[in-house]
């Protein structure tokens, strides 16, 4: 099979700390083919991409490019071998021009090795690359900072092409693009495949997968599920193959004694630069799950409620009274709590102690309550089963689960009315996850309203009283508790609107 394939990877295996994230995967790409790679979060897609890109070294497995075995330990080596990658996080220098970014590290020189950098050639080659992709209107000398996200992505693609790539991997290339920008991406991909470049296309959006891909490989929990021609699959089947795993997660039962109360947090037509026309209601004692793809605006919605982004349109009310929050400080004053998804950067001061971290919010917003909060804190922390030598330990030395519990303690100290949770169990162990779920139930018993964003579908389904699904910055719809993963995914990807979802 190697004759007709431009890239053949066999037995690709990678584990981190004894935890196998990808086991024994085989993948083969033909020239000019768009190969879809799908799977849920944590299925091993990005691990595979990073191994092919030279970011990770595989534990086992071989990679053949054009029939020759390659092994590399640095992205540049992978690129020289013909495998380029457009990551979701762009590798661009914002203050440099398009040409300088594309040729970074291999600037062409005049008169041999010690000659000056040939800026004219850099410019010419860049224009040529962009024209070759069918892109007009981007000039080689434009600063990358002044480009839109879509344009920056084009620069990344042009850079990939400039290595004379035989294989280009694209990780969620449309996550940040508007609809009409996606079309341009399609046309660029078409040109590339026309030249015989193979594309490994990772996306959650099933419509795109079916629009573009000839072959689809499905991963699940680090295992290869199937590789099939696209025409043999329907969206419904694909979703089933992606999700169909035994449900091993466990969630505490919904307490019977909690009655859902009056509306606590109400949004009516809320919109700004990131979300639009969002109307929703979270009642006292209710957990509402907020599902959606990466980049669908879930985090931005929570941030808008909390005052990080101002509300430009529509209104928010709390317990029936209008709520105007234009900074996080005002959000806290209104007793909203926001558990961020980025615990290390935004949730904690890593080199401060557990005690200082857990008192951080009270101290800065309700200084007069610091004393009582300090007296209660040891009890709160031990109630959350925080495992630490002492309260003076720096939080950077705690495990992810214990760090998350400190974040929770920090926010419980303000007696919140509404808790906004963004990926509350990301990167924490099973035991801590369970404690977080229990805590959410305890909060509802006290009449707190919980709005939870999560990319883990079992978690959204297992914990929520209702599920709201976001797509492209708007609410796509609402699903009742206990809906199937297929239904949520279909709504989040827009497959439902095509009418052939499972």
């Amino acid at each position, binding site marked *: 099979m190697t004759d007709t394939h431009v890239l053949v990877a066999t037995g690709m295996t990678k584990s981190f700390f004894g935890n196998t994230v990808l086991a024994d995967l085989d993948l083969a790409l033909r020239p000019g083919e768009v190969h879809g790679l799908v799977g849920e979060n944590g299925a091993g897609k990005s691990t595979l991409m990073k191994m092919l890109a030279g970011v990770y070294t595989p534990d086992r497995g071989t990679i053949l490019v054009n029939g020759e075995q390659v092994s590399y330990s640095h992205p540049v080596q992978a690129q020289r071998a013909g495998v380029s990658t457009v990551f979701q996080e762009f590798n661009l220098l914002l203050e440099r021009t398009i040409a300088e970014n594309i040729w970074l590290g291999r600037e062409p020189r005049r008169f041999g090795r010690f000659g000056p950098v040939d*800026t004219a050639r850099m410019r010419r080659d860049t224009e040529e690359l962009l024209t070759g992709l069918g892109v007009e209107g981007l000039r080689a000398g434009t600063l990358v900072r002044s480009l839109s996200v879509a344009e920056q992505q*084009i620069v990344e693609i042009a850079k990939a092409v400039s290595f004379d790539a035989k294989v280009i991997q694209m990780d969620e290339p449309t996550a940040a693009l508007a609809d009409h920008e996606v079309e341009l991406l399609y046309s660029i991909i078409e040109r590339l495949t026309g030249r015989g470049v193979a594309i490994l296309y990772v996306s959650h959006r099933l419509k795109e997968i079916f629009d573009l891909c000839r072959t689809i490989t499905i991963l699940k929990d680090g295992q290869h599920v199937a590789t099939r021609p696209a025409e043999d699959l329907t969206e419904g089947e694909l979703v089933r193959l992606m999700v169909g795993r035994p449900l091993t997660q466990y969630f505490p039962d919904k307490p019977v004694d909690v009655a859902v109360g009056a509306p606590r947090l109400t949004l009516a037509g809320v919109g700004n630069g990131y979300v639009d026309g969002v109307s929703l209601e979270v009642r006292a004692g209710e957990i509402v799950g907020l599902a959606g793809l990466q980049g669908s605006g879930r985090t931005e919605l929570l941030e808008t409620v909390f005052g990080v982004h101002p509300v430009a349109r529509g209104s928010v009310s709390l317990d029936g009274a209008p709520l105007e929050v234009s900074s996080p400080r005002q959000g806290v004053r209104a007793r909203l709590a926001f558990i961020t998804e980025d615990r290390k950067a935004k949730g904690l001061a890593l080199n401060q102690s557990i005690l200082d971290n857990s008192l951080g919010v009270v101290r800065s917003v309700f200084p007069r309550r610091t004393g009582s909060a300090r007296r209660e804190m040891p009890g709160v922390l031990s109630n959350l089963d925080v495992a630490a030598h002492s309260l003076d330990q720096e939080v950077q030395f705690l495990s992810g689960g214990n760090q998350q519990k400190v974040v929770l303690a920090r926010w419980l100290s303000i007696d919140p009315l509404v808790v906004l949770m963004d990926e509350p169990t990301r990167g924490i162990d099973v035991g801590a996850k369970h404690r977080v779920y229990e805590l959410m139930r305890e909060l509802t018993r006290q009449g707190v309203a919980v709005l939870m964003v999560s990319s883990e579908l079992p978690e959204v389904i297992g914990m929520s009283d209702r599920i709201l699904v976001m797509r492209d910055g708007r609410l796509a719809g609402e699903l009742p508790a206990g809906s199937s993963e297929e239904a949520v995914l279909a709504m989040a990807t827009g497959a439902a609107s095509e009418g052939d979802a499972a």
Partner: protein
Amino acid sequence: MSSTTHPHETPEDVRRRRASRPKAARQLGSTALIYLVLVGVVVASAVLTAVEGRNFFSQGNIWGVLTAMSVLGLISIGQTLVILVGSLDLSVPYVVSLATLIAAGGMKGLDANVPAAVFNTLVLCALIGLVMGLLVSLLDVHGFIASLGVGLIVSGYLATNYQGSHGAAAPDVRLLGRSGIAGIIPTAFIILLVCTLIVTLLLRYTRIGHHLYAVGGNREVARMSGVRTAVPVIAAHVVCSLLAGLAGLMLLSRTGVGLPTIGSQGRYDLLSIAAVVLGGTLLAGGKGSVIGTIGGVAIFAVIDNVMGVMQVNPFLKDFVRGLVIVLAVAVYARRSVVSRPPRFGPDRVLPLPGPLAGPASPTDKEPA
């Protein structure tokens, strides 16, 4: 896609799209701005000097301003490189002092000793820069701390081994310090211009120059692109110390003797950083130019000159300098940095109207 041909794009869309893109003029921004400010400062100074009954553009005054620019200018070029690469050099004043002492001690007032003395001085300075470059790039010590430490070591060495002036400059060197073109342009200033030109060309036309910007802009991106990140850091520190040494020689040509405190009295560490920032270079690195820095140095020199003519008291002088720096940085900081462009609203490059427009189009017309 906003900036490419699109089957449904009308000329109106193209116009709107172009309008939504920052203008090229705004890209020129900092360098053009700094020279515009310089022209304003010169005009204001000329007026103020005239009010005092003197001529700003007199031969002697121009000579004075340009002389004042040369030493700080040379040091600031080096500081620009170090800041561009994401580091900082606080050791320059001590390196300047050391250079005057080593050179003066080596010359002993004899022309025959000049080549050896100059060579020794510059090699020593380059070595000091090499040490800092290695500390910053290989041991990951921040430039602030690395140069502070090295600066203190040099300063301690100077204080223990030299009391008062030392050695003597060779007559030829002293002559050079007084020479110039037509009594208006001092040789020292010509040296500054030549250095500016060379460093600008190096930044623009060598790989190391390109990589200097890359490492300062984002070290990880540079590394992922296959750049050896240590090389530009070390080069920037070596060149910076070398230029500080050259500045020391320049001072020696004027004073005639080596002085252990001449650098710290000149406050070249903070003034050079201020000139670099005033010239539009990002203190975090990755963006800026030597030409801008020279503009910043010129602004300081002109303001100092006019305050000298007006016999402003020293405290007020520092007050004005401080004000200039803070205002300049406040102006630069106003260029907002948007990390994640909004999906809805007019800030976004406009989606197309018509049947293909995404769901975002209705809101785009609303003022948000």
